[in-house]
């Protein structure tokens, strides 16, 4: 959790969310308090893509072990990435589209910092 917060505070991401198995939010942190509600809507909508990507039987070619879902969707202002654990806990990260963060950096952020043992308080 601390890592996530630091990830947010170093202005790499504008919003971080942890979503439970039943798609209810467990933790949402947004950089800009004013935009928090708007970002929540975005994160919530991004779950559509997560659901679709994790739908059983749809994509047998995709490596099921690859828990990093990649770019869920992007708009002019934001890019949303996702990561899902084996227990269907989702990590959603919203990045400013103008940010210089590259795709592979997001991936490493997800894998290295989130996957081993996310400390959910």
């Amino acid at each position: 959790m601390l890592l996530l917060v630091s990830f947010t505070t170093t202005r790499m991401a504008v919003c971080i969310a942890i979503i439970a198995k039943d798609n209810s939010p467990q933790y949402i942190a947004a950089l800009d308090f004013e935009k928090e509600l708007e970002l929540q809507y975005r994160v919530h909508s991004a779950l559509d893509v997560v659901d679709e990507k994790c739908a059983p039987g749809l994509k047998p070619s995709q490596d099921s072990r690859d828990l990093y879902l990649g770019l869920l969707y992007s708009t002019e202002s934001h890019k949303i990435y996702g990561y899902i654990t084996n227990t269907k806990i989702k990590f959603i990260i919203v990045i400013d589209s103008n940010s210089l963060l590259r795709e592979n950096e997001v991936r490493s952020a997800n894998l290295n910092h989130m996957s081993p043992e996310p400390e959910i308080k």
Partner: protein
Amino acid sequence: MSADTSILPSELITTPLPLIGLAGLDVDKNPIHKSILESFYTNRKADRAQIHFKLLAPNYEFPVSKPKRQTYEWYQPKGILKKNWMLKHLHVLPAVVVLFQDIEWNDPQWSEKLLQCASIVQSLKNSLQGRNTKISVVLLQKGSPLPSTDVIVSERSANLISKCDINSKMLFVLSHNEHLMGCILRLESAFVDFAQGYYKQMAQQVRLHRDQLTTSHHFLKIRHQFKLGFIAEMRFDFSTALKHYSQAYVNLEEIRVVDTNCLEIKTISGFLNYKMCKLMFRLNAPRDAITQFRNHVERFKSRTGFKELIFEHFGWLSTQYSAFADLFCDAIKNGLPALQTQHPGLYFHKSAEYLVKRKETFQVCYAQSSNQTLDGSQVSNIFWSDYFGVRGTKISEPIHEQQMILIVQQTEKNFNHSAAIINLLSKARAQFKQYKCPRFRRKLTLDLADEYVKSGDHQKALTFYILMLGDYRDEMWHPVLTEVLLKTLRASFLAASVVDFITCSVEALSPKIAINESERIIVLENLWKVFQNVPPIPSSQKAPELKSQWEAALLNHTAPTVVDMDRILELLECIVTFESPQVKFDETVKLQLYLRSKSAVPLKIRVVALWLTDSNSNYKLQAHSYVELKSNAESNQKSIDDGLLVETNKCYRFQFTANDFNFVENSELSILRLEIIMGSDRQYALLTLKSSLKATKNFKSYNPHHDSLENIQANSICYIVPTFHLTTQNSLCDQPMLVNEYFKSTAVITNSFDLALQNVGVSITVPPNLRNKVFITVDLSKTRQKLNSQIQIDVGDLQMHSSVPIQYYIVSLIGGNIELHQKLWYQIDNVEAVNANQKSDVIVESPEHKEATKPNPNNKTHNMNIEYTNDGVKKVKDDTIIIPCVEEFAVQGRFFTLNKQAMTRGFRNEDFLFRVDLEVKSWCDIDILDMFFICDHNLIEKQYSKQRRKFNSPYKTGQKVKDIMILHSTKSTSQWVAANDLQKVDKQNVLFQRIRNIDKQSTEYSPISTISSEKDDKYKSNLLSKIPINSTIVPSIMNASQNAGVMKRSFSDMSKGKSSNLLTSSFNESIAAKDETKSAMISKTIYNKAIDSFQLTDYCRGFLKEGSYSESNMLIPVFGVYCVRWRRSGCTEENETKLIVRGIEIIDSPLNIYCVLDDKMYVKVPMTLKITLVNPTVKAIRLRASMKTSENFMISGSTQLNISIYSQSSFDLSFNLYPLKAGWQQLPVFEIRYNNTQDDEQNTEANAELQSLVNRWMPKKVFILVSTCVLDLGYQLNLFLCILADAATLQVNLAV
């Protein structure tokens, strides 16, 4: 002319088609002309040529061709694209003009008509001067066409061509007959060719102009490229068209964008982008289209133009997006697959977003300039312009510009933004739904509702909001839910919807809705205002219209407003529990409700009611008082009548008592719902809780309240235990029963109620898995018992406070716990006395009930069934009786040779021993009355001891009894049956088959049993099927006194299979299945005494054999049945254990040897040893016998003899011996060999066999008595011979 410059004109959006003009058709008067025109117009499907036809009136005026410029050097156009150019070429100026004329080749007025036609053609040519438009003439003729070789045809057609001055290819003849449609199609394709030629020519012309342009002619370059692209589209050359449009777009980019030309550049770029994207989709390059569109938007996003008209820019962007989305949609219709992350909905959404921005920015701009006035006279002409994207003349005087901005703003005011936004959002929603984005769609729906609110349609907005509330609530996105709920509340307030306002207000009280406390108090206050029938409008606010609306709504609304609390999160925490999971029928059902409010504000409730249900009817209970629970104490009981203020986080308990209802007995009550009323008498909310009462928490939540609410174990169902007026007491003694024992069971049925019961009955049933292993009987007379698997005892009426004993016997063939089903029933005639309000047709045993009883183990004891009949109630109760059963004996049997050697197979005409070891296993003492063997008729039993056997009594556990008998067979087992059926039997020692031990045979078998279990099973099955050994069974209709003949028949019946399933349940399924139903019901009579039963069958012991060998796959002979009659010490009931003795194979021997000694032998008294050799074979045998000398005996007579024995005859050898010593003495060794001197070697084996026979049958030792003793041995000494070899085992009968 529309003021909205952002809208794409329709001529741009339609796909350009070649225009063909149809002249000379008089549609109104001439039906033939009409039908021709219709066949051109109608049925234009994809397979027909893509043409646009236009009917030209006789006086149609073609646009006049402008004179071409010689040089473009000084020409500066005022705009890029003329507004009329596309329209002209799409709709006005045809590529081909087709003139239809009614002229027959053989027309009598040919020359006149020819002239007329020529003049029309000429006038067309005149009006089309300067154009390349082709003119074609079609002659309409009736009847079948004349061949072209016809003289008149060729002459007159040539004449026509020359007169009209047209190309010969442009002349057609259309015969108006049944093949009209085919002719029309052919004409069409010819016209398309002409059109192609026309547009090709036109393109060349444009290209010619282009070549004259210089680098400064930006506008013209773009115009020409656009024209070329458009013409290429007319020619269906899409890739060329795309090329030209792309070039035009590139040229456009070179122009510097300033505020004044911004609108035009954006308009034209929008046109070009639209055309490019459309063609890209058409050419199946959707990625290119998307990329192009993105770049386009990116490039012009920042080109806002005039600040005062920035809304125009957003309008333009919105249009770009929606136009692209439409193109995308069309492409999808034509088979393009779209993705969840890339579909038209995204563009519609974006378009809607820009439209919102357009609206917002307009409002800002308008507010800034609202004080400026406008001169109305200029409005009309300011938008007029020859060019796309150009307003008025291009004079950039500041005053003029100011005027223009004002006019545009004024026009914008008339635009209905909300309608457009709603339209776009609806389109986007449909797309998002299609591409599986439910959540995104929800967001769009919210936006839509927001827009409805802005447009003032609160009712519609409310509908959408309420739909979305549930979705967000289910996903537990509370921050979002809070926003939606507040919006809904606002919408319901503005729409004056009482129900929604109350529902939303109640939900807003939930702590999960993140509003601060002051807001919550306002919500509560407003809610109470509504309850008091007062509009919830703050007094400071002046809204007379809304107020009257609310007043009307409140007047029309009738209470109650039902609020489903299951959907509202964690406002009230309720636990309803029955006081006990089951109550007796005459007891009162009590329930408790624990209630805790989680809201930050106190709630005042009035009535608390609970609905209970059994599956048939519902019952309502109301609480009258409550108790407040504190950490460890309870407050005093208070009445609920004047309301209760439920304070935050306090726990209250309500007591419900169901005094007034008569529940149906044997039913299950469950909680249907809880109702809490909040509000005034006139207006109130009915809060219902249903499923949340049953919700179970997986984790125990942290309990910050010091009350017991968390620890309550809720009983969600209550079983109404029916009253059963009978009790049974089974006086089974503590001791277990024994296998094969007739065990007496006594049950006392007691009616301890003040009620007489009718038709009392009890039935005992053997469960299916124990059928044919356990039997029940009521009659235990000496000679027979009827054995049943079910007995029913009808007691009749039972008076109040009386009891009746019943008695029956159980006999089991197996050990273990025996479970019997006991069913007890009775009937009460006067139902009303028992159950006052009971309806007669109530079915208690509903499926739900059964299902519901499963998880509740408490109900298992009430296996009761209640049937309501017309004249009374019948109650049936099922019980299970468990009787432990233990073995009485362990029995083992073996066969031995006379020399006490274990025998694997016997010889014909040989005596052998059969020894039975019986060990008492019973826990109690047992008197053995008799042990005997009933042998098969192939066998002869000889008594081993002449003395009648005496049994000690009683036998205790672990004591052993032995029994030995001599058996003899005169036939080999192969002769017992047809020889071809018999197969070699594996080595098999004596086997005892106990019927009761079917399942655990191994313990009973001799350890050297090597027969495979499969064979074993099969054998046993067959055996059992045929030999009702353990109980001789005859049908019950027969009396014991009936004559033997009948009996015999019945036996043979049974041996043919009827009895099979009586004794064996596991084998031979076909038979079992056939007779199962019957056999379960037929009672059987079983003779207890096996001997008697055999005698009754006329000594027909043959059935044993018949039984064992009638099946072809029989392998092991059965020697008979071993019976043990016994009883418990001190009891009178006799029992009989019957065991099947499975034998060994008996074969022919090459030689039988019998040896006879004197009864008594004394020292120094001569004795005779007589040896009889019998040749059972069909050949003569020659033998050499010899008697070896011995120290202990003197032998007289010859000791070596050559003997030859004829077939089937015998030879006696007699030796005189003279014992020299007393006591156990070794007899002289006797030897025989085959006397085949020629071939000694080969006979070694045969000789060894002979010697083994000698060893088998010849005694080894004799006991020599001392001559002086007077012995009085009462035994037959020939018995002696049998027991010589092993002295240790001989003590049985030698009481020396």
